[in-house]
């Protein structure tokens, strides 16, 4: 997957989790937590969706690395190529 495809995959997950959210202006450098008010249970939800859709297993110690869109894409790249 290209960076853009990975980004879109994450956007798809986010829009499933928060269907009422406008994601078109998402700032890739800013934490999800601040922009979307996602809490730790939501972050876990993103991780579960990644596992369900792309069979990526993310160890619990790495959950913190998925805090922004930019970091998430970077982290997922080796897993999704």
């Amino acid at each position, binding site marked *: 997957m290209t960076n853009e495809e990975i980004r879109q995959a994450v956007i798809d997950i986010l829009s*499933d*989790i*928060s*269907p*009422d959210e406008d994601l078109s202006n998402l700032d890739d450098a800013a934490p999800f937590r601040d922009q*979307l*008010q996602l*809490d730790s*249970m*939501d972050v*876990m*939800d993103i991780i*579960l969706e990644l*596992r*369900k859709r792309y069979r990526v*297993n993310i160890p619990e110690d790495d959950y913190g690395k998925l805090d922004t869109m930019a970091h998430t894409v970077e982290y997922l790249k080796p897993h999704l190529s």
Partner: protein
Amino acid sequence: MYDTVIIGAGMSGLAAGIRLAHYNKRVCILERHKMVGGLNSYYQQSGRNYDVGLHAITNYAQKGTKTGPLSRLLRHLRFKWEELALVPQIGSTIAFPGVSLRFANDIALFESEIARNFPVQIDGFRKMIGELIDYNQIGMGTDGGSAREFVARHISDPLLTEMLFCPLLYYGGARENDMEFAQFCIMFRSIFLEGFARPYQGVRLILQKLLQKFKGLGGELRLRAGVTEILSRNGRAEKLLLEDGGEIHAKQFLSSAGWRETMRLCYESGKTQEQFPAGRLSFVETISVLRHDPKKLGHDRTIVFYNDSPSFVYEKPDSLVDVRSGVICSPNNFDYAEPLGEGMIRITALANYDRWASLDEKQYRLEKMRWYDRMIDSAVRFVPDFRNQVIDTDMFTPLTIRRFTGHENGAVYGAPEKKYDGRTHLDNLYVCGTDQGMVGVVGSLVSGVTIANKYLLGGE
């Protein structure tokens, strides 16, 4: 073999089931009744639709709200805000002798009412809100002591204290007269800070949505499938025995049957008596169908919490019913685009399970009629007299609650001690719902989601 089997298709069991099915777990919900919903089910009688328990959904949040239990719940269940079709309340009242406090889904009204009626207390009240607002809202906290002690640090007027406790105890008090601090924070937020709403169609809409979603995701539901025993080996639950003699194996088990009831399924009865105290608090509820909308009689309150003396007693009464206090709910008085049509008034009061259980069938029917009248007589001291408008009635008692929840003593809010972490003595058996410490429709849904997330979705 199933990944998870869930005991009970009430709100918490359905919510947990949706989470598990969404993540492709093989999941089956076993429900003793022929209907889903548990305490919050619905029925038809003489062609009319009734909800079993629903007054209002708590924790209201407007569309677009991102924080708070309702928003979190919508995200985890993958519901759009519109799907629950929640319509906010018009406004509610706490009525004690000589003082009434109005509140709605905006804390500003409640604050101004307190400032007007208890000017010396308002600063303390605001400080108290500041302290409890950040308290962990997912019910995974631990017992933080007595709510009365917490309130006493901020509020010195005993009448105001009672008026604050009355709605919170009625809508979530598992103990007599006091609550755990954790429970108080959750309840305070859900009622006074977020507030009440209701779908136009009542609880059936919510249950239908939950069920559709669960089944759409491949979840299995078995009705008339009461569980009689949980068999374990080496500290792990192995299988369930069913009323019809069948057995069901699974890797993990989740019970929404209540703590004491779940333990009873694990051990021979008798052992459980002292070890797991049962709740004592139960309710009766009268339902009066009115010819007209109650607003025509000048009654526009969504919910009225009333008490006829300065101190409020929230205890198991000695008599069949305690008519000194109660809750009057009018499902008509939400801000619907279209009025509901017929009027309805529901009144809840404290009741004694043992007294109701000791009656024979004829006495039971007679006492229901007598106490229906007494409850209404008591309530019309606080709302316009609607007695000549009544065209149909129904009433439920602690025995009804017992039948719908399986809770001993008809204990509405379950056991006095909560199991916040949802764990049991068996590695792969967890509890959710009322006895995990979350009450109400939203609370029990949150509980199902939280326990599923925490224990049942990890690993592969």
